[in-house]
């Protein structure tokens, strides 16, 4: 034990035996079989990796052991009494017996104890049928009970949050939920209360367990004590059928298992993918499957007729769309056509639409980002980091949005790196985020003005002498970290912290770090589900599929595509401006709603009002499609197979669990249908054919064909030749030997069409080829600074997303809808409020160069002075009324509606 360096837990308040071993291998004998394992690894894990399952309740691979349940007792030669294998690190020469009579008796005893107060209401328990307590009782437990007294009683169930209910009678006090909340989520809102047999899980008075990660406790509870409102009594586990897939609530792409019963999605559980999500999901991802069944889903094509949108058959609707495209093309040329969106679909959708827009129609006015991201050349061309790089980073620099709100499971990973692994953390930004409390250096700046603090940081990280100032704790932490982690990149988590300022400022800060000689690597924090797949597959002006520019990829691609645009097209802001100005005649909206999503709402409205034609692909009606000629209803997540690319550029499999209601079509197929009607057969009949074509024509995707995608358990990071060693090839996605901590206890085998590898056995090793041509690399240059001077009478706007807003996933999923905040507020700190002399909650007039709206003012201590925060995923009036996309920042003047109340002193 003491041989494992204590510095493994640099956070000084952690008490545990080591969870991971060191690099030295030791010999351990388990039930007579000698095996090798890293010294210090926990015995229970070593045994499991070699096929011996030691029963357990409280132990969880992703949390520190507590030794509460006493189920995992084993005999260790030379140690007195039985030992808990969940907290016993292996050492050289250890001899372990896991099945002796004494061990069996102890296991039998623990189960008898656990059952004396357990209500045994299995027939009405959600866990019944996939319950570790049931399973282990069957395998290791007593056949009968000798307890004849009255069992413990509690009111049941009680809600501990809006999403989770607690049945204290069923609880076996394993402390998984409480440890998850405190250790993993950092939301210590549940704990134990009471003592002895009346020990119960409690919330604190007036403080529900309102964590963004509350659903994980339902998943890891070894009994049915914690249940999810969304799933209670919905199904019996044996009636479920499951498929592994990637979550698409945000761009982290957490791996999970999607369960359905009778063609209805009923549950989504995290799967433990080491490089991605460690088994966790955020509540939005977990419960956000419900929107798929929303009653307002579009399920038949619509066409404009008689002043409204009316149902139409697919052939007719496709014909109409084709004639609109042909008409505009013939009259005004390809440049009169703009394609927006595509960040919500699959890689196959993105590719087929890129091919249709650029390779068939010939327009480069294509943009998957709606003014809320970063320039494509930065995202595509920056030196990329993987999520796992966070664990071994020299330091992590946050230069982007509040990860807790926008990329929640990435927040967990960064938090773990900072808290458990001791990776120094820097928070650059205009206001506090969920990770601010964990940062060694907090560098605040006015919105739109990050350069000065970034330069200081870059200099300090590059080893230049700094004054003793706010960076000192950081440099000390880095020095301390260097004792165990000398090398390792500085990982910059890069994204847009606010859409009220131009992206240029962020790009300038990124360029400073990229040029600082600190081996900076960037991890994108653009949150939209598959925005990285869309960019990688050419849904950005100037780029072709596979991270190459028009010029670089033209010759190669011309072998497959009919044409490639001659010159670089426009980004979303210009496309909308040109649509508003009349140069663009047709807007194709790929599953997007610019009026709601574009930061400058007025521009989006003008564009859609003035543009002659709109073709919209979507799953719901929205404001932007009011002007559409044709609306195509599309197949969505859960209904569609394919692949996505996450923030790392990791290509991972999407599974299909249900057959869609009505007649929807996959977006990629709509593209091929339109292409065929425009006279270009794409010759793509299935999503695997699309994948194979991508692997063939898109340089960055070389090697990532349909076979690899289906074999790679955790997906494959591009370019795959650089990441080949990280790929785990698996026949069964939930491998028997590497049990998933995600799904109850035992892996749920996936079957049928989504069998990994589609039935083909993977090779023992893969040696993926390198791209034949150099991929695009960012020049690390940034546009000149044009920042406006700050006006001391005004507040500068930060407009960012929160997890639960007016977005479709939240509002269309009944479980989440109750958590949604849909009306905008102006959030300022107390001093600004006092300066204005208004009361908390009072409605004020907010004036920007763009317009004037009325919003309630709310005090928020996390907002610094001279800054005002308005969330963007809110119904109008809100941030998008205030933002002018052509301004570098958004300054606000606040006026009171009523006369200020003069307080008597």
């Amino acid at each position, binding site marked *: 034990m003491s041989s494992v360096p204590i510095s493994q837990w640099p956070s000084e*308040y952690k008490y545990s*035996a080591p969870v991971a071993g060191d690099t030295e291998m030791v010999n351990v004998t388990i039930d007579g079989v000698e095996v090798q394992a890293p010294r210090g690894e926990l015995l229970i894990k070593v045994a499991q990796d070699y096929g011996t399952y030691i029963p357990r309740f409280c132990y969880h691979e992703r949390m520190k052991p507590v030794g509460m349940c*006493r189920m995992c007792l084993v005999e260790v030669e030379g140690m007195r009494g039985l030992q808990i294998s969940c907290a016993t690190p292996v050492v050289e020469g250890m001899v372990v017996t896991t099945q002796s009579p004494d061990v069996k*008796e102890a296991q039998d*005893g623990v189960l008898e*104890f656990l059952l004396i107060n357990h209500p045994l209401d299995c027939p009405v328990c959600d866990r019944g049928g996939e319950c570790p307590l049931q399973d282990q009782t069957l395998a290791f437990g007593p056949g009968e009970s000798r307890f004849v007294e009255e069992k413990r009683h509690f009111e049941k169930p009680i809600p501990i949050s809006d999403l989770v209910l607690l049945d204290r009678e069923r609880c076996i006090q394993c402390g998984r939920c409480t440890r998850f909340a405190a250790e993993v989520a950092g939301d210590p809102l549940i704990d134990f209360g009471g003592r002895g*047999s009346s020990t119960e899980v409690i919330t604190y008075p007036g403080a529900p367990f309102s964590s963004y990660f509350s659903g994980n406790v339902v998943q890891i509870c070894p009994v049915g004590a914690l249940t999810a409102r969304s799933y209670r009594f919905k199904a019996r586990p044996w009636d479920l059928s499951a498929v592994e897939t990637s979550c698409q609530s945000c761009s982290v792409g957490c791996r999970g298992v999607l369960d359905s019963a009778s063609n209805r999605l009923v549950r989504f559980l995290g799967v433990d993918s080491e490089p991605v999500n460690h088994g966790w999901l955020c509540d939005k991802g977990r419960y956000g499957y419900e929107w798929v069944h929303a009653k307002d889903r579009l399920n038949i094509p619509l066409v404009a007729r008689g002043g409204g949108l009316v149902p139409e058959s697919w052939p007719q609707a496709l014909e109409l769309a084709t004639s609109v495209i042909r008409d505009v093309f013939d009259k005004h040329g390809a440049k009169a056509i703009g394609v927006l969106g595509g960040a919500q679909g699959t890689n196959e959708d993105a590719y087929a639409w890129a091919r249709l827009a650029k390779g068939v129609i010939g327009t480069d006015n294509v943009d998957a980002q709606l003014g809320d991201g970063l320039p494509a050349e930065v995202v595509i061309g920056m030196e990329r980091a993987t999520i796992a790089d966070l664990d071994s980073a020299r330091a992590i620099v946050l230069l982007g949005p509040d990860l807790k709100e926008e990329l929640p499971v990435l927040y967990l990973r960064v938090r773990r790196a900072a808290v458990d692994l001791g990776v120094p953390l820097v928070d650059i930004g205009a206001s506090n985020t969920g990770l601010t409390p964990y940062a060694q250096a907090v560098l605040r700046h006015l919105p739109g003005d990050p350069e000065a603090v970034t330069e200081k940081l870059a200099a300090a990280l590059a080893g230049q002498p700094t004054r003793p100032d706010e960076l000192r704790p950081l440099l000390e932490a880095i020095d301390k970290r260097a004792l165990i982690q000398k090398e390792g990149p500085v990982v910059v988590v890069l994204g847009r912290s606010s859409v009220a300022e131009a992206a240029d400022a962020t790009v300038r800060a990124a360029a400073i770090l990229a040029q600082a000689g600190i081996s900076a690597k960037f991890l994108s924090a653009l949150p939209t589900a598959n925005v990285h797949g869309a960019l990688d597959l050419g849904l950005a002006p100037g780029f072709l599929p596979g991270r190459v520019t028009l010029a670089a990829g033209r010759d190669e691609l011309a072998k497959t595509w009919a044409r490639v645009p001659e010159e670089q097209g426009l980004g979303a802001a210009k496309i909308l401006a040109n649509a508003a100005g009349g140069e663009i005649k047709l807007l194709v909206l790929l599953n997007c709603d610019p009026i709601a999503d574009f930061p400058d709402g007025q521009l989006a409205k003008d564009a859609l009002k003035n543009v002659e034609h709109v073709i919209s692909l979507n799953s719901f009606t929205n404001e932007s499609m009011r002007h559409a000629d044709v609306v195509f209803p599309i197949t969505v997540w859960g209904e569609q197979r394919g692949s996505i690319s996450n923030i790392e550029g990791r290509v991972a499999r999407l599974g299909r669990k249900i057959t869609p209601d009505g007649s929807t079509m996959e977006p990629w197929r709509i593209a091929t249908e339109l292409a065929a009607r425009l006279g270009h057969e794409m010759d793509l009949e299935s999503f695997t054919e699309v994948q194979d074509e991508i692997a063939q024509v898109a340089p960055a995707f070389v090697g990532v064909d349909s076979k690899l995608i289906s074999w790679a358990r955790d997906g494959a990071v591009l370019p795959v030749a650089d990441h080949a060693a990280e790929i785990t090839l698996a026949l069964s996605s939930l491998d028997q030997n590497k049990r998933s901590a995600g799904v109850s206890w035992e892996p749920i085998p996936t079957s049928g069409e989504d069998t990994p590898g589609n039935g083909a056995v993977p090779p023992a090793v893969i040696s993926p080829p390198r791209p034949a041509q150099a991929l695009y690399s960012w020049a690390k240059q940034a546009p000149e600074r044009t920042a406006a001077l700050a006006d001391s009478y005004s507040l500068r706007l930060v407009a960012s997303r929160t997890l639960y807003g007016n977005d479709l996933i939240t509002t269309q999923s009944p479980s989440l809808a109750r958590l949604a905040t849909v009306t905008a507020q102006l959030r300022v700190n107390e001093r600004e409020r006092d300066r204005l002399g208004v009361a908390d909650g009072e409605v004020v007039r907010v004036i920007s160069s763009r317009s004037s709206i009325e919003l309630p003012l709310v005090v928020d201590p996390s907002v610094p002075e001279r800054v005002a925060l308005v969330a963007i995923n809110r119904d109008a009036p809100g941030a998008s009324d205030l933002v002018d996309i052509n301004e570098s920042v958004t300054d606000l003047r606040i006026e009171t509606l009523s006369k200020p109340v003069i307080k008597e002193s």
Partner: protein
Amino acid sequence: MAIEETRIVTKFLRDRPQDSWEYAVAREHNQAYSALEAALKRDPNELIEEVKTSGLRGRGGAGFSTGQKWSFLPAGVFPRYLAINADEGEPSTFKDHMLIEGDPHQLIEGTIISAFAIGAHHAFIYIRGEFALGTERLEAAVAEAYKNGYLGKDILGSGFDLELIVHQGAGCYIAGDETGLLSSLEGERAMPRIKPPFPAVQGLFAAPTVVNNVETISNIPHIVRKGGEWYASMGVNKSTGTRIFSVSGMVERPGNYEIELGMSFRDLIEGLAGGVRGGRPMQFFIPGGASAPWLLPEHLDEPLDMDRASELRTMLGSGSIMAFDDTVDPLLVSWRLARFFAHESCGKCTPCREGSSWIEKVLYRMTNGLGRPDDLDLLLDFGSNIVPGLNAPFAQTTICALGPSTMSHVVSLDRCFGAEIRARLQKDFDKRRSLEVTPA
């Protein structure tokens, strides 16, 4: 020869019951802090050796060698902490609160010397929440010690700094277990922690920590003053020195007696405490606090020796003795103890959490004439899943020793009164059956 106490740590407070806790009095009449002055001039390692030489063993319950415990701290790892266990929660134990109320300066002096010896610059006295007077006197004494330069920076010009914090518990037995105490000190629920890591390696705030009992630490100034050899010359075998025993139950003169270890139970109970009340015969006695297995009158001539107690399959534990005469129903005693443990189990580990209340329920029906013939065997059977082997010194399937304590009295029932109880259960059962209405 008269049977007498050997007063070392209780001498002063016995001699001046009216004001022994006052700083000026203690300084003038008890050389308070003179041992500290001497100790600060010595090498810390030498002090540890001195304590090792004394053979002093922990007075909190486990009886572990104090000097050895101090030398377990890993070299070169700082900060380190010293925590004094003043939680005294063991039923029938009431010696520490006398030491705290009567001679707080002795405890503080011992604490400072111990902290100096182990290189700690922060020490904590975790005092049981119910000890109102003790807290008051201790806090006043700590303030005096600060005022007079025995605490704080550069103590007596030695360059040694020490902050001493008195922390009141919130009232639970399990905060007396050393790791439970550390959790509680950190502001967490008092739940014991799995070992390893041991407190010596990762204790308070994950730093190396020594936890010692009040009485243990109160001995330190005397050992420093008179030497380890002197201390070791008292006592018997590996139980050196003196020890305070809280004698209670049905005896004529209940109270605290500080005696040289090695004295017999008979001399202590009959000689010093006046024997069983009213001259009644003794039925059994509990030698080491509620957690200790019971002994019978036939054991009265055994010596108070920690190792001998182990041979007798019990322990001297927290240093308290409860005597029971022949009017007492042993089942009632057992049930009452079971209730205590069921109430105080922290709920962390399954066998103790569930087992302790099951034991209580079964004993309740046994005590009240509702037992079943095989109830004692039932208890022993499922109880062996808390205490495999049922033999003291107890093995345990639990984290802390409270687990086995829940079974200690049951094991004693079987050992001391097994046959009678089984017969009684059968009789109760038969009687109940005879009352049942048999259908015609």
